């Protein structure tokens, strides 16, 4: 699946998808299953789905209210996508056959005190108004369903549809499924230029170029540079985030755990390891190859995990790493470009790993001229120009 050989020179495809993460792979697989000749190219950078922590998020992230209060109304309107996205993952888990660690355990966003619990109640009302079921549970109910949590917590917002995926297994299974569907997968293939042609696009990758009728850019934070090759302004920031993983333990944490005010996600994968992340910053200044871990994030994230789940502190941390979270204005960037027929953009919004497969489904329906059942205008790639 590595760099192409010269025999591929000037090979043409119906569709080329740039980006081999969760979104690009799902798009490629669906298109190929419809009979199209599809190539999926990935620069093979070490970021992407393979660095994801694998949380399935449905309730609104508390940090949005904290950091971007002006965006809350818009994000709330897109909340209805998240339950559908979880269903899409359930379908995928069944179709892929392999065990990808899919589990809907429910998610808890916990509060230290009554003030935080009140703000969770407000959030819950907004969520229910937008089609997401969450409920507030008090400290007694919390202690009953999650005895592994610190018993001083005041309560939580509970969302039954939340859960987890094992991202390494999912990536491997999706890759294999795309391969089986006939997708030409090329990793380690960096696109160097994109040009408009009479009936489509030309995609150059240094030594090789491909012609294609349709072009999908699903390259996360790489989308900005690729889109600019076609004169489009799509500002996606690469936000380096910290993650930790522990040795494997007996099952003891069954929910996806988050906090009402502080940055954390904590869950136990099906292999027994705790994955602790949730938005602590990493550094992209010093390391040219991968974002570098910050000690303050490593220790701070773990100290918070210890506060919420005291027994987590006895488990050895075997590895920490930083992944890239592509982020625009928290909403997905999804759709076609008037004036550039055949070009499509697909970058999922907040909690992109969760909604990546659903965004892929919507885009493929749009490409096929089918009814998506969604008003996609708020997600137009042209909204930044």
């Amino acid at each position, binding site marked *: *699946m*590595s760099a192409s050989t010269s025999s591929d020179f000037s090979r043409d495809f119906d569709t080329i998808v740039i980006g081999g993460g969760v979104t690009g792979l799902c798009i490629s697989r669906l298109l190929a299953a419809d009979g199209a000749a599809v190539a999926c190219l990935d620069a*093979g950078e*070490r970021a992407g789905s*393979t660095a994801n922590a694998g949380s399935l998020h449905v309730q609104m992230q508390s940090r949005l209210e904290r950091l971007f209060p002006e965006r809350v109304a818009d994000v709330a309107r897109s909340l209805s996508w998240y339950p559908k996205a979880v269903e899409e993952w359930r379908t995928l888990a069944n179709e892929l056959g392999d065990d990808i660690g899919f589990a809907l355990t429910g998610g808890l966003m916990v509060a230290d005190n009554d003030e935080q619990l009140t703000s969770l109640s407000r959030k819950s009302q907004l969520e229910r108004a937008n089609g997401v079921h969450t409920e507030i549970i008090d400290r007694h109910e919390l202690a009953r369903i999650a005895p*592994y949590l*610190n*018993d*001083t917590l005041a309560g939580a917002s509970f969302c039954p549809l939340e859960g987890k995926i094992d991202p*390494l297994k999912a*990536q*491997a299974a999706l890759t294999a499924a795309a*391969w089986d569907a006939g997708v030409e997968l090329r*990793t*380690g293939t960096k696109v160097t230029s994109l040009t408009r042609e009479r009936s489509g696009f030309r995609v150059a990758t240094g030594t090789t170029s491909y012609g294609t009728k349709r072009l999908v850019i699903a390259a996360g934070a790489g989308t900005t540079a690729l889109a600019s090759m076609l004169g489009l302004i799509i500002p996606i920031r690469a936000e380096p985030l910290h993650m930790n993983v*522990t*040795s*494997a*333990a*007996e099952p*003891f944490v069954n929910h996806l755990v988050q906090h009402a005010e*502080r940055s954390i996600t904590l869950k136990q994968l099906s292999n*027994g390891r705790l994955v602790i992340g949730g938005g602590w910053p990493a550094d992209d200044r*010093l*390391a040219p*190859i*991968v974002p570098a*871990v*910050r*000690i*303050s994030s*490593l*220790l*701070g994230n*773990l*100290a*918070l*995990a*210890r*506060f*919420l789940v*005291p*027994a*987590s*502190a*006895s*488990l*050895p*941390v*075997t*590895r*920490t*790493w930083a992944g890239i979270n592509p982020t625009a204005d928290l909403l997905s960037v999804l759709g076609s470009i008037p004036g550039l027929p055949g070009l499509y953009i697909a970058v999922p919004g907040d909690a992109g790993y969760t909604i990546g497969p659903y965004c892929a489904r919507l885009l493929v329906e749009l490409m096929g001229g089918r009814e998506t059942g969604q008003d996609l205008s708020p997600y137009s790639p042209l909204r930044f120009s």
Partner: protein
Amino acid sequence: MKQNEPSVAVQTTLPRLRFDFDGRSVPALPSDTLAAALTRAGILTLRSPGADDPGRGIFCGMGVCQDCLVTVDGVPERRACMTDVAEGMQVESGQPLLRPESNAKPASPNIDLQEPLTPQLLVIGGGAAGLSAALTAARLGVQVTLLDERKTLGGQYFKQARTAAHIPPSMRGDKQAAAGRALIEAVHSAGVTVYCDALVWGCEDGSTLFARVAGRLMSFRPGALIVAGGAYERVVPRPGWTLPGVMTTGAAQTLLRTSGTLPGKRVLIAGNGPLNLQVAVELARAGAKIVAIVEAAAPTLITKAGAFLRMLGLAPDLALQGIRLAAGSLTHNIAVLSGMRVIGISTTDSGLSVQMQDIRNGTMRTSDCDVLCLSDGFLPNNELLRLLGCRHDFDALRGHLVTVRDVNCMTSIEGIFAIGDCCGLNGARAAIHEGEIAALAALAHLHQKHTTERASALDLARRNLQKVQRFQRALWRFYAPVAGAYASLQSDIQHGDETLLCRCERITLGKVRAACVGDNRDLGAIKRATRIGMGACQGRYCLPAAIAFLQANHALQPDEFTMPAPRMPLRPLSCNDLLLKPTE
């Protein structure tokens, strides 16, 4: 549970304390490591990584492999080789899934990091190189702090007995240990601040280092840094290499030299290089039966004579030491099977059955033993240097990354020096001279005025180093293996697909082969697809082997970035381990 006849080289002192291992009361000497006490009691199996695995025991003996993890007083994943016994200690064998302990009081969700200590010079690693650097700098008036992961300084060459009672009779008066003891005493009297039990697990901004020192979090931001992390043994994956009773030659030597313990009664030693001969003689003198030494180098002395004469000219004392060892092997009737390698290990009712093969003509041979010691050369402990961001080159000949250094042993980062075997194996003597060079150069970095005296000291050290390096080159020519270290993995013939490549995650060669879809040869992608190298040891054994496999079978051309980046913490540490402050 596999058990051996108790093997005790120390007969002098009666056991003075007891601890429990899986409910069984085990005697121990004060200051024994768990590894030594359990080995002496004949207990070889310390951990079960899964129901379908025959178990694991002591392997590297030096804190690298993470295979001897046991639960100590309820705390999971303590390394038996690095943990001291205590009266009444409750030790349980390691299990595939840990039992999370919830004894913690609700701690604060916040951290309050203390300001780092700021020694003029920080030296990491208290082996030959680090001791030499610390001593040289401290004698010139520099304020030096020295950190070592072990509880005793000396490193792998100057291995020091835990207490006088741990010195086996056959090792009394040993010159190697005595030289180390003298160097350590000199370091202390020169006023070096020494922290033992100090595990450096991370760094930030290439300038601040984080360590767990005797259970507490400490950080250092030194004026200059010298990294002397040493080396660990290369062991080529073979069928059965994870079985209890299979350990590195260095681990067997550590058991003997630091704890007066034989690894077993009947010992087979295999691999490549002079350490195997040395340890065979040491074990034989202490009472072990050496079944044989299996050596991958060619048997004919004629081709080696030139190399030996060169060694004799460059360092007559070391060459003569080699002759004495060879003579020792004759005295103890040790058979040296040259040009052979171990290709398979299995268990029998009484121990291990080891299958060997002549590398050139394929003739097979089988021997029984209690313990198999393996050492196929050495790999550098350079993960801290890589984490700091120092540049490395992939050395195709040695099959590992080599730290890029200038003539002063300075890395690509100003003020960070790397010395000794963590830069590629050159032996203790070279390490000592590199310590001198780096210390003198670090002085210049610390803006101390250069005197003519120091300039001539630097000059002398450089000349001495060159001479030792020429000796080392001759030594490795003498020990040049008939085929490359990983030849058995490269040819695809010797090892079946069931050979475990990754000990930690239990990933077979077959699984790695299957992950090489199409012409995929990116080690990072294969790592994520198979989990090879994602376990507790961070791929220290499997990744060099995987690179050799991909080189031979998938035209991989390794470079600086082929090896996945080292991850913090450099050794597995729990949040409890990481966050305990000096004041708590």
